[in-house]
């Protein structure tokens, strides 16, 4: 994430004290030095509510992940119920794709499953009906 110039912010309804101890006691044994990004506390779930991920019955935020661009615009979101974890490889792929699109000023779009180095699409009148010529899954 650091290499991609991306800041990670994690959010749960735990207190910042719990975050500290969790990082020190458990996470530091999974990741050398503990996790390096800010762990935010959303006690009461008001932030999660605005992001549509707060479960008021359980009193927790479910797994919601948002990619926010440098203008503060949400480019992608993914929300899972608690028992299934996320796939960081897909997150990284999406970030690279959004960064590529942004670098081209929106002139290029990335087809499904695109990874860096692969062909992109240039939407416009010339491409209509001819995607099959330039891209095959």
């Amino acid at each position, binding site marked *: 994430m650091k290499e991609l110039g991306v800041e990670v912010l994690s959010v*749960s309804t735990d207190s910042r004290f719990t975050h500290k101890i969790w990082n020190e006691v458990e996470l530091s044994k999974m990741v050398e030095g503990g996790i390096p990004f800010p762990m*935010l506390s959303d006690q009461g779930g008001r932030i*999660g509510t605005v992001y549509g991920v707060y479960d008021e019955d359980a009193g927790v935020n479910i797994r*919601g992940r948002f990619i*926010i661009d*440098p203008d503060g615009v949400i480019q992608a979101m993914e929300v899972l119920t608690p028992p299934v974890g996320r796939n960081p490889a897909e997150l990284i792929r999406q970030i690279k794709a*959004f960064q590529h699109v942004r670098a081209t000023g929106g002139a290029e779009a990335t087809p499904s499953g695109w990874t860096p180095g692969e062909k992109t699409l240039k939407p416009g009148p010339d491409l209509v009906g001819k995607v099959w010529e330039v891209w095959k899954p």
Partner: protein
Amino acid sequence: MVKEVDSCVQPAAGPLVPEPTPVEGVSPPEEEVKMVMARVGKEAPDFEASAYVAGEGFKNVKLSDYRGQWVVLCFYPGDFTFV
């Protein structure tokens, strides 16, 4: 400036809603301020939360502090859970 202490309960500001600009001659609506929901393609609702940062300790973090950078915002159910 008041020195910040690590009290047991430190309410974070939560979602930050811009102050509505009063329009002259129009009384502000009595309804509560409309909550802006997060949507793709729209500006991410700003918020302020208290945070723990390894090596730095406790501090308040605002989403808008990260303007100009890509941000991944990750919600999860709870510390010390399993997945």
